[in-house]
């Protein structure tokens, strides 16, 4: 069945069965490889995308639930002012180790800063604890969020 999805500012046709997670519609049908697969149960956050600005776990979101929602992935988040700042902070602090979780981390961080421009440590804990970094770059993720929000950060 064909689903019309608004992804990264373009309407695209994904030919997948009902029940297919959005992640696999993006990756295998539309060739958008930025969102990553880590667990398949919405537990690690590597697949995080935004639907109408809200972070969701695309591995646990059936494609038919997306409807007319505007999906934004890591591949286009840099077109937003906050997403661009977050990517710049990640680059400046050289956050990544293996880098596999970082698209999801950046999507969660961008959603946090959109809602809460100057997050506290507690805000960061609450918004980011759904994203696992197996390399444990949490120190730098926290610092990069502070840097992107114009607050003092130290690594």
């Amino acid at each position: 069945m064909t689903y019309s999805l608004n992804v990264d500012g373009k309407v695209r046709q994904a030919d997948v069965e009902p029940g297919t997670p959005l992640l696999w519609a993006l990756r295998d049908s539309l060739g958008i490889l930025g969102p990553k697969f880590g667990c398949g149960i919405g537990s690690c956050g590597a697949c995080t995308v935004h639907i109408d600005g809200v972070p969701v776990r695309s591995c646990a979101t059936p494609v038919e639930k997306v409807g007319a929602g505007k999906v934004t992935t890591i591949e286009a988040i840099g077109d937003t002012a906050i997403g661009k700042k977050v990517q710049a902070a990640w680059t400046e602090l050289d956050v990544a180790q293996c880098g596999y979780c970082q698209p999801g981390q950046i999507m969660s961080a961008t959603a946090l800063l959109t809602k809460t421009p100057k997050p506290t440590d507690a805000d960061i804990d609450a918004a980011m604890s759904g994203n696992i970094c197996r390399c444990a770059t949490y120190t730098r993720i926290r610092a990069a969020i502070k840097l992107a929000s114009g607050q003092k950060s130290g690594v």
Partner: protein
Amino acid sequence: MADGTDISRRHFVQVSAAAGGLMLSFSVAGKARADGTNAPVLNAYVTIAPDNVVTLVAKNPEIGQGIKTSLPMIIAEELDVDWAQVRIQQADSKPAVYGLQFAGGSMATPMNWDQLRKVGATARALIVAAAAANWKVPASECTTASGVVHHKASKRSATYGSLAAQAATLPAPDPKSIVLKDPKAYKIIGKSKPQVDTAAIVRGKPLFGIDVVVPGMLYATFEKAPVFGAGVASADLDAALAVKGVRKAFLVGGGPELNGLLPGVAVVADSWWQARQGRNKLNIKWQDHPTAQQSSSGFAAQADALSKGAPLRTERLDGDVAAGFTGATSTVEAAYAYPFIAHAPLEPQNCTAHFHDGKMEIWAPTQYPDAGRQLVAKTLGLKPADITIHMTRCGGGFGRRLANDYMVEAAWIAKETGSPVKLLWTREDDLRHDFYRPAGWHYLKGAVDKSGKISAWHDHFVTLGTAGKPASSAGMATTEFPARFVENFKYDLSVIECGIPTGPLRAPGSNALAFVVQSFIDELAHSAGIDPVTFRLNLLGDQVFVGTAGKDGYDGHRMKGVLELVAAKSGWGKTKLGPRQGMGVAFHFSHLGYFAEVVQAHVSEAGDVTVEKVWVAADVGRQIINPTGALNQVQGAVIDGLSAALGQKISIEGGAVVERNFNTYPLLRMKSAPMVEVHWNITDNAPTGLGEPALPPVLPALCNAIFAATGKRLRSLPISKDQLKV
């Protein structure tokens, strides 16, 4: 000069690790015409284009340890170019050209430090020789900087790019004539460089194995028995084939080797989700297998029984252990245990393979590609030379991808299918089919004499293995600390038959042994009423170096250096602590690195542990190659160790793994990650690796901090709330 010039020969520096050093042998590798797209190749690592862009090859697998950045930094330094003019190209697996290419044992830095400096310096010498010949001046009068050769006396200069084509035709310089830089002149080594893939990572560009796309590619899943090694009794292949998009479903016979191709059922489809839906319909019945009799609780019961009898054998005996106990002022007896744990790299195992014209092409996130090639060759009956392996960036490794089981599966399925195939495991597949950090049990007795030193140490180590031989990563060296630092020392060993696959996990051996040894040392310190740092300094004593350098050597002086540094930096003994708050210390030597760590932790009355801060003092020699990457590695390794201590456990029931996903195998998250403060103790020793040695000491340092906070001694992992609530 290079543009449009025919180069009749290309010279390659061929590297062989066989002799333990660099062997330069310049070979003629066919004819190549230099043009804008085919720039002069100075050696297998260095290509310089006419516009002075320098392309350096990154030889090893990148798993998040930063090696794709740090090894080329070494070449660039000696080549004497600016980092900004450097581009990095990931090597394929080509052991004949690059020698050993693997990510393991924190060995990349010690194995490549000298070699890659010489690679850079040799290429620079060729460029200088070309300039000198053109200018008819002695090479010794030429200097270099930022990719330009200068002859000051005649005020001439030329870019490397303008000289490269000519340099590539020159004979190799005498290796003895190659002079390496004085480290004081370093402009790249020792300066923080962001990872070369950072820009691509933050934009979600396809870098990883899972992102590989080959035209005409199909997607595969592969289901193996929950009981390790069991064969397929039956499977409903037709039901899988009835699912939309499924192209093939077939049995794979496999073999008995747990690190080879195992029996299972493959489903191949137009998309991965369709393959997975097909797999759900298979209704597989598995054959009986003897490993089904094994369980974690069964292993523990056997260990307990073995501890009460004579050991299988004594591995080391020094002095008179009985006399050490007789003369003691305090003695302690304790049983320690640790569980199986899984690697769980965040990118699930995957591999893309394409078999065509009798040859296999493979794209894989692997830590040891050539071992994968040998496995594929043996299993599929191919010649190693007919197998090409492209190394992708790995979404984590931690030792898991030293095994190439997923590679041989992909190769087999691709050959059977006849199309390019991307095999992808689920997280459940990954947690249930790992090569686990083995569980182990230590029955310890120790004594302290009136001088405050350990007068006797007896460890009966019960481990897992086969026919009296410890399984992979389940052994303990006879020189494991505190051997050689305690006069009366005995290490007994017993082995339990085990059919669960085990293997190296970040700081193998050490990630469990440090917990046991440094916790028990803490018990002895407290039993004698001596401060834990003082007690450890006494234990290290005045021994400067024991054993043989490069083999089993242990430098007590270097360990004292980091222990004293971490005590000073953490405010050890001077910090006023609140109720149920404590500091713990531990040290450990592994992978040639000396690490001492202090943890400050708080334990609530409900038993919740908060790690407030960790201090690390590290000695990995005279040179930190990439400081930003090094700091990231140490902070990550420490938090990884805390993650293992606080939550990780793989349980075996009926010969199979119980845990399925991150909801039952918890990894540490942002809210639990402490600040980790790192201090380098720079010493005049060869530079060594950082992927692993920071991890082991943090587990006992945490347990020792919890003891200081609560008076409760933790002798089994992971730490549970129930052990600590009031």
